[in-house]
């Protein structure tokens, strides 16, 4: 345990640590571009230069701790060099923050205000390079903004292992380029490079020029795309920036999804599918209860459902594994005795999707199979003779498999043809409209928060379950 001194503060460090790690742990911030806690050290941005007594300047990210070393992270010499490094970095950078998606969360922008604030000292033309280079069907590359920190190439080599990116040419005309026979579009984790890019060089096509980031706010959530249950941030418009002039749908859109760093589950990464949650959640929604396709009020639908439950002799329930822990537990508690329950797989792997790998993606494409099976067992849905009522909760079940004589209560969120075939149809809220928890395949529980208000006709499944469990009352 060598003792080192950072800005005069004595710190017990571990032998295997670098000065950067020790400094971060103890609240001495050292600016950096290329360093990333989950990637190897390349030390090429030179932003983390610190002064060591007797040794002069060196980069903190590649500096092993040594007993008694005196590190100064903010001396005059260090400040002067930081300023100069920022001069070098911005020398050929277009400084087009006004039209850059990264503006507002850009490391270069932040550091410029924090450590330099100086105008460019150059009077010469900047080196021009390609803009909007087509890196894949998801990502664009602006080589002029690129500061060649190599986080993206290291990510594809060390984390996603697609090895899809490399550096072409050298000097100030070096460019990040895709490797010819290893397309980035086949890397299911490719969008992480957009997040880890410290500047606006890598641009998500989905988010391109969609919104300034300061109009958005993140809500912590859980990706329901597979049993991993990665924690994510769902970005949507801030309430104070909801403008009437915009298409009202824009106020309720998922602008983008980014990972929420969680060492227990996904670390700082998520897969591309997690970025596309809008495709799942922004499908056309069902917002009216129906009796055999005829719109009714919620109480009327509930009454009819209660009547059917009361009359059924052999009721079966197909429980959604997209339900939260709370909903599943309520169902078990309130209706577990009434119905013979099976866990239903709401979602199957889509064609062309990666099924499973060593990094994050799991074969089970549903978020809460673990908790659902703990409560309701592993058995496949089975309709014995005499099944006269089936409660289907959630999508993804082929109604042709139901016994022909059985009545159907259907709880679903989306506008689907089956809705009208059910004897009772009740629209339920989706993940972005409620609180809850999912249990992932390893048993780790993660919480999600609501981003948007639900529509009036739509009920939370938990409330519906409670209502269904109360005894039937007469028609009003």
């Amino acid at each position, binding site marked *: 345990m060598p003792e080192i001194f950072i800005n005069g503060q004595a710190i017990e460090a571990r032998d295997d640590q670098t000065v950067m790690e020790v400094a971060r742990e103890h609240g001495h911030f050292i600016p950096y571009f290329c360093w990333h806690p989950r990637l190897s050290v390349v030390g090429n941005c*030179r932003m983390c230069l610190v002064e060591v007594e007797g040794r002069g300047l060196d980069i903190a990210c590649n500096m092993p701790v040594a007993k008694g070393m005196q590190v100064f992270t903010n001396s005059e010499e260090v400040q002067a060099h930081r300023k100069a*490094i920022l001069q*070098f970095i911005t020398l050929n950078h277009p400084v087009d923050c006004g039209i850059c998606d990264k503006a507002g969360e850009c490391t270069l922008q932040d550091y410029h205000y924090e450590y330099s604030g100086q105008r460019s*000292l150059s009077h010469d033309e900047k080196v021009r390079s390609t803009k909007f280079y087509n890196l894949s069907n998801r990502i664009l590359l602006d080589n002029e903004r690129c500061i060649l920190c190599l986080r993206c190439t290291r990510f594809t080599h060390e984390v996603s292992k697609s090895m899809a990116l490399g*550096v072409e040419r*050298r000097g*100030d005309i070096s460019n990040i380029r895709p490797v010819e026979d290893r397309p980035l579009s086949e890397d299911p984790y490719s969008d992480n490079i957009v997040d880890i890019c410290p500047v606006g060089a890598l641009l998500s096509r989905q988010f391109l020029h969609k919104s300034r980031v300061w109009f958005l706010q993140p809500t912590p959530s859980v990706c329901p795309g597979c049993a991993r249950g990665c924690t994510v941030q769902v970005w949507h418009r801030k309430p104070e920036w909801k403008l009437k002039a915009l298409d009202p749908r824009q106020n309720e859109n998922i602008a983008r999804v980014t990972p929420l760093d969680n060492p227990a589950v996904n670390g700082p990464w998520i897969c591309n599918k997690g970025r596309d949650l809008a495709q799942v959640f922004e499908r056309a929604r069902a917002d009216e209860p129906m009796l055999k396709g005829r719109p009714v009020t919620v109480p009327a639908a509930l009454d009819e459902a209660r009547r059917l439950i009361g009359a059924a002799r052999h009721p079966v329930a197909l429980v959604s594994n997209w339900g939260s822990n709370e909903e599943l537990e309520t169902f078990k508690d309130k209706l577990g005795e009434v119905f013979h329950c099976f866990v239903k797989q709401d979602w199957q792997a889509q064609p062309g999707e990666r099924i499973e790998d060593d990094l994050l993606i799991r074969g089970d494409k549903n978020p809460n199979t673990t908790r659902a099976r703990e409560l309701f067992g592993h058995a496949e849905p089975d309709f014995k003779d005499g099944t006269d009522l089936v409660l289907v909760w959630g999508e993804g079940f082929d109604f042709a498999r139901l016994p022909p004589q059985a009545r159907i209560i259907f709880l679903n969120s989306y506008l689907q043809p089956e809705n009208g075939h059910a004897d009772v149809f009740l629209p339920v809220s989706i993940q972005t409209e409620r609180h809850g928890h999912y249990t992932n395949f390893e048993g780790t529980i993660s919480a999600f928060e609501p981003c948007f208000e639900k529509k009036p006709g739509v009920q939370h499944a938990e409330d519906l379950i409670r209502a269904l469990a109360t005894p039937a009352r007469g028609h009003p």
Partner: protein
Amino acid sequence: MPGRQLIMSFPVTATSHALPEYRARGGYGALAKTLGQLKPQDVVKEVTASGLQGRGGAAFAVGRKWQVVQYDDGQPHYLIANADEGEPGTFKDRWILENNPHVLLESMLIASYALNVRNCFVYIRGEFDLPYRRLADAVEEAYAAGLFGRNVLGSGFSCDIVVYRGAGAYVAGEASGLISSLEGKKGYPRNRPPRLTVKGLYQRPTVVNNVESLSNIAWIINNGADAFKAVGTPKSPGTRLFSVSGHINRPGVYEVELGYPWMKFLDEDCGGVPQGRAIKCVVPGGVSSKVLTGADITNLKLSHEDLWDAGSTLGSGGMIVIAEGTCMVALLQVLMRFYHHESCGQCTPCRHGTGWLHRILDRIVAGDGRADDIERLYYISKFNDGTTICGLGDAAGYACSGILDKFRDEFEYCIEHKRSKFGGNLECLRSS
């Protein structure tokens, strides 16, 4: 002859590079002696005692580098001869590779024996054609004679050699860049720590030595460390090969015993400057060492300590003589074009700084200089010094600030008058 000759000690003929003639000169005697009589530790001791300094530019003691490698730490070790001679003005290793490749091979065998190396490499510059063919032929001859491979000369020591051709990047001549390139990656230099003698090629202890440094080993083993120290000066033992070019009557490669008077060498051995012009300045050892003016070098000797005292270094031994009447602005422009072109682009200060220097100089030469340009050149040089991964950025800065320090008036003249004081002249033209 500028002093004693250790490497260029024989007349070059059409066949003098081949194995039979090398053997006739006593070649591979040192190898036989090493394998027969010496323990590996003895070789390291001998080389350390000789005080041999690296000939690639940094003049780091070869013995000290070798001592870092633990002979039996259970890992493979590697030895690499750095034949990626790219420093502008330097072509001394080329002479060894063309005319005496076996001295390199013999020395590498001895070094491999001393460092427990099973596989050694020669990383040779891609543009070297004849040197490559001569070296490849020499390797073939050596294998045929049982000098490489399993059980060298029946001693039980085995060693193989690979000659690897680079693709022409200057930065791949930097030891760690060379290793990256040899591993098949982009020739990016690596951050230290770890040192290459701890984690080098394939993350194993690796010794990278210059061709000329290695080529001295055979002589040291043959004649002993004391004999080697008797050559040269106490602080700079041995000889050095200088490749002399520029405005000089007899350019070429010369072996000079260290401590030899500089002006005597230039005037007598190299025939002086054409038309008897005065020496304006000399680049002592490749363009990455700071220039010295004619006045600076008058009383200097060719030794590391004299050059260090004068604020420069012997560097890689690429001596460029520049006669009076040369435009230093145009010269610096050429140098900066080189550094800009050769910067690998890995770390920020060098990637942008070298290009910035180049563009400013282009502008000054074109007659668009600005009053703050000289200050800016100093600024870029200053912040390239010590902030980069390898020495390329520092070297560009040294070259720039070195010339600016000594010839600032020419730059001011060029900026003020929008034309060069010497007509942008780089040639030593014959005056009619």
